[in-house]
């Protein structure tokens, strides 16, 4: 598919609710400053569990961002998604007047890694502690993976193609790609992204089954990808929602075009088979470059998956070299998520947000808590690095075996 796509997808709005900031500005400030917010787990009921460190979203006052009824009727993961969608829609200046007459032109896509775990645990407790008649009516719409897409669609009046992909972490990029394809087929805009809330006590118990979960108790040492001290990953809450639009349609309404979603590809190489993910990730990068019609040496920065497991980090370093050739050892690589943790499907969407902001600010954010890189990569550590950035590559892998890559372009380089 070398030919230029007729309908291109551009990012026009970014909404972030992350451990290091409950709005996009705060997120970017702490991200480029390289501040780590990883800290002890404080969510109620988690204190006795062996997971010590996580990226919690603190200071998130749901009531200030969404209507009171949603706080009772939906789970925390949906609160995050609804708040982030609002921020993104505001940022894009996309309001009801823009689509009142064409509601089928705007869709919603989210990725979900675990659904409404806190809500579900509360209702399970009612069922097993009190009896079946104590399960409330909102359980039927709050726990399942589709909750956030449904609520955002209803709240905004978006009747376009609505979708939910649940393909663990790489699903965040898959959701964006799904939105871009929807736009290619005729949808004008999509509210897309992922937010997660996996820190309810029972959800944490479930994650203890991941052998790559870090249970270290020192926040500065719990998640150190690409170092010889790598000991697994730290989970996080939050995520990001974006507004993506068909380029011409965005231009017509005078929207600010932030970046182009230029290419994506996804592959699968088996759960926890990190050595094999080398080929899978390389194939995904090659596929994304091909779709973006982008040469390897055009990539100016790589936002790495950075799992923090030696075999996985090594596979990723090799995959970057396999796919980008000699350029792979020179291109700056960063992983801001080492300062906030991995918010599952939300993680790569946060990276996409950070990549767009990096291109806009000509600044590559560093990889917090990482100083002693032991792979043949130019990892940006310590401080943000100024650089002219036209094209960014975002990588993601899931614990169940998915690999995905996405190419983003700065708008000045988008030919009209």
């Amino acid at each position: 598919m070398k030919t230029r796509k007729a309908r291109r997808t551009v990012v026009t709005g970014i909404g972030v609710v992350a451990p290091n900031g409950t709005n996009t500005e705060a997120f970017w400030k702490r991200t480029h400053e390289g501040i780590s917010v990883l800290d002890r787990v404080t969510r109620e009921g988690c204190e006795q569990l062996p997971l010590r460190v996580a990226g919690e979203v603190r200071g998130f006052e749901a009531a200030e961002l969404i209507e009171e009824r949603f706080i009772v009727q939906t789970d925390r993961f949906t609160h995050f998604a609804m708040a982030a969608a609002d921020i993104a829609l505001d940022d894009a200046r996309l309001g009801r007047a823009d689509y009142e007459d064409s509601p089928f032109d705007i869709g919603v896509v989210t990725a979900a890694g675990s659904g409404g775990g806190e809500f579900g645990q509360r209702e399970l407790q009612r069922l097993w502690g009190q009896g079946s008649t104590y399960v409330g009516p909102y359980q039927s719409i709050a726990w399942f993976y589709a909750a956030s897409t449904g609520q955002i669609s209803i709240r905004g009046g978006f009747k376009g193609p609505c979708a939910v992909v649940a393909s663990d972490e790489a699903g965040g990029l898959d959701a964006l790609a799904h939105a871009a394809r929807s736009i290619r087929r005729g949808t004008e805009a999509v509210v897309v992204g992922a937010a997660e809330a996996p820190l309810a006590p029972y959800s944490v118990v479930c994650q203890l089954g991941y052998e790559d979960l870090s249970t270290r108790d020192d926040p500065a040492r719990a998640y150190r990808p690409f170092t010889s001290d790598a000991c697994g990953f730290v989970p996080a809450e939050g995520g990001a929602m974006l507004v993506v639009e068909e380029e011409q349609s965005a231009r017509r309404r005078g929207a600010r075009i932030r970046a182009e979603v230029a290419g994506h590809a996804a592959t699968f190489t088996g759960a926890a088979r990190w050595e094999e993910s080398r080929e899978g990730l390389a194939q995904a990068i090659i596929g994304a470059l091909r779709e973006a019609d982008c040469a390897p040496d055009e990539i100016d920065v790589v936002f790495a998956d950075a799992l923090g497991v030696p075999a996985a980090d090594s596979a990723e370093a090799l995959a970057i070299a396999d796919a980008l050739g000699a350029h792979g050892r020179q291109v700056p690589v960063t992983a801001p998520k080492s300062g906030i943790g991995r918010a599952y499907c939300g993680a790569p969407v946060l990276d996409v947000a950070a990549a767009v902001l990096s291109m806009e600010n000509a600044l590559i954010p560093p990889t917090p808590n990482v100083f002693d890189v032991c792979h043949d990569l130019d990892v940006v550590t310590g401080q943000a690095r100024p650089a002219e950035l036209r094209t960014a590559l975002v990588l993601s892998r899931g614990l169940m075996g998915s690999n995905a890559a996405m190419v983003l372009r700065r708008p000045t380089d988008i030919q009209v």
Partner: protein
Amino acid sequence: MTRRVGVTGVGVVAPGGIGAPAFWDLLANGRTATRGITLFDPAGFRSRIAAECDFDPAAHGLDADQVAKSDRYVQFAMVAAREALGDAGLDPEKVDPWRMGVSLGTAVGGTTRLEHDYVAVSGSGARWDVDHRPAGPHLERAFSPSSLASAVAEQVGAHGPVQTVSTGCTSGLDAIGYAFHSIEEGRVDVCIAGASDSPITPITVACFDAIKATSANNDDPEHASRPFDSRRDGFVMGEGGAVLVLEELEHARARGATVYCEIAGYATFGNAYHMTGLTPEGLEMAEAINRALDHARMDGSQIDYVNAHGSGTKQNDRHETAAVKRALGAHAYDVSMSSIKSMVGHSLGAIGAIEIAACVLALVHQTVPPTANYESPDPECDLDYVPRTARPLKLRSVLSVGSGFGGFQSAVALTRTGGRTP
């Protein structure tokens, strides 16, 4: 040139019969597989009936490791995938693994194991601050819905895009729809597509009890699922899975495969109305039907059969009847329309794929499955619902539609090869 998408294999795990032949036998004879719940003791629940699968994973070829790692719904999908691959005569070793994808839907995922282990770690709901020690192995797989597509991808050796899709009760239609797009748009040549759910657990039964969406006709379970009938009182929960082998048409022909039919069109929209409520007019479902037909380059009058969502709730069946009339116009009154949920219940995310499997088999057998238990017409549901007895009919093109919590409205058009305007 447009890439066309053929169905070359079908696998089904459904209540009343494991395997596509047993499933079709049930449908063609209008038998119902609804009964009193046996998977747990339903005493004290409002709805105590369901359509359960009599399923032994070992008897269907899963090894001990596969069984230990996977939740019941994943086992359904693996057994259905195995059957579908065999049916397609597709040797995964002879397919480029990077050009083979997996797209599987589920609404509630690993809730069976999640609930089971929850009881252990919480002291039967006694504590919020759960104790992790009694948790069983592989619980993380139940937690992560992507384990569904992942397990099947490992089983078949796929290296292309592998995705779990979770759009509530349209998950099955949407998973097949996304797979259709992925072949049509050239990302893969083969896609293992379908859906699976095993929701007959206390928490899921209780959550539908709480909103009175399920039938409380506990004294007559065999006749409790009554789509479109005036006496319908809610859906009957089901479980199961169905998997199709979808293949780019030339790819299938090149290896001499039998192509049962083509997936010709797909569309989905949100109703932006209410998480569980449906508009009386059915505007958004009608839009999904129209766009799926446009995609298939077909006219509504070419549709010979509509496989309905037909859940058997008061609201759904009226909504759907209105939507089909809006989309197909006068032809709605001529078309045969039925709900197999009358026989196999409503298996949430799985049912869309099971219904598409039923459409494929209907095209193969040139027979429309009936709406069992349909006896007493509802004035607001005045279409031809194929009461109780299967109907032999010349079928070229059929439509499967669905609605899901969250407002999802989806439609898939299938046609015998050559059934659409070139």
